[in-house]
């Protein structure tokens, strides 16, 4: 039944080469932990991607209950965590996953650094990687405000204060991020928009660029 459906589509669109290209792509021996256990360090890139997938999935489900309003944000988070089935797990995935993502990005960066994989011809992918790192930090920063509890509020005040310390334009950056002259209703709405629409869109674009470049250039050779 499924095979027939597949054949029906394949006959019209010739989709086999699309996935074959990925499925038949060989993993070089020096990055395969089955040959050299120490090659596990090459897994951190994939693990970063995996945790990002978890963040995006769990985030999509959280927004089903979350509301970005100062009167209600905290109550909606309380409700989704304590009253909705598996709320603790889904919020837990997103909450802990955020930290795990950042740890994985860091380990991946260390691997790239110490294997010298950033050198010519892969300089551009290092730059894209740095941008990805900033976008992920941005997601962590904007997401942290969303539960709208005391920790969220003061962490954001501190973060905005740091942004304000940029020479000359700091004040503007702060007002732009804060959306107001206090950390309040408009800040929360803004951070929400940035957290669930703007940064994920940029993140996906950068990831695509990252992966296309890896396919073009291959993984850097053995040490």
């Amino acid at each position: 039944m499924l095979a027939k459906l597949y054949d029906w589509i394949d006959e019209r669109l010739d989709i086999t080469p699309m996935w074959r290209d990925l499925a038949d792509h060989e993993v070089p021996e020096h990055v395969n932990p089955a040959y050299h256990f120490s090659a596990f360090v090459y897994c951190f890139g994939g693990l970063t991607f995996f945790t990002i997938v978890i963040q995006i999935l769990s985030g999509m489900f959280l927004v089903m209950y979350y509301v970005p309003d100062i009167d209600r944000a905290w109550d909606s988070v309380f409700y989704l965590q304590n009253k909705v089935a598996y709320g603790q797990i889904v919020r837990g995935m997103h909450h802990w996953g955020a930290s795990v993502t950042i740890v994985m990005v860091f380990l991946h960066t260390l691997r790239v650094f110490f294997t010298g994989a950033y050198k010519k011809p892969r300089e551009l992918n290092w730059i894209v990687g740095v941008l990805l790192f900033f976008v992920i930090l941005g997601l962590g920063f904007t997401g942290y405000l969303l539960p709208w509890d005391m920790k969220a509020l003061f962490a954001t005040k501190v973060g905005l204060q740091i942004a304000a310390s940029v020479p000359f334009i700091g004040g503007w950056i702060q007002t732009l991020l804060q959306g107001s002259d206090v950390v309040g209703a408009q800040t929360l709405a803004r951070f929400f928009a940035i957290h669930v629409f703007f940064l994920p869109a940029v993140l996906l674009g950068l990831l695509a660029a990252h992966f296309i470049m890896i396919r073009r250039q291959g993984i850097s050779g053995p040490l």
Partner: protein
Amino acid sequence: MSNNEHDVTRRQFLNYTLTGVGGFMAAGMLMPMLRFAVDPLLQNKTSGKMVAVTNVSQLTNEPQRFTFKVKKVDGWHTFEEQKIAYIYKKENGEILALSPICTHLGCTVSWNDPAFPNEFHCPCHGGRYTKSGINIPGTPPPEPLHVYDQKVKGGTVYLGEDHPRGGS
């Protein structure tokens, strides 16, 4: 060991086990999220308490409009929902409390509209009902107006949930 007499090759075996284990891991991730999302389907309904609406002495043989409030919990939002009832005493003295929610598509009907005397009339698609809430054939509503659970205690009329009456 050779696998000549077995029909599972090493490649197939690995494919099956990896797909199986991967499937379990994916399910372990997705199940909580899906259950989380369908939670509204599986929450049990809380039935509200009966609410005092009016005094029996106020009631006549003519449907009158009364409003009352019931406490509602909508996720993280608790509020008082305003409800409407048309209440009157039938010839035999029984009290009938009708819900004004049109059984066609949910607009609100009103009693004794100048253009439709002695009927309930719905402005949305022209649904009409008799005084006792029975839908008039040839108009859109498929069934009579719902009736509230009611009780009288110490001269006060209390209303609860509304229910369909069946028939048409």
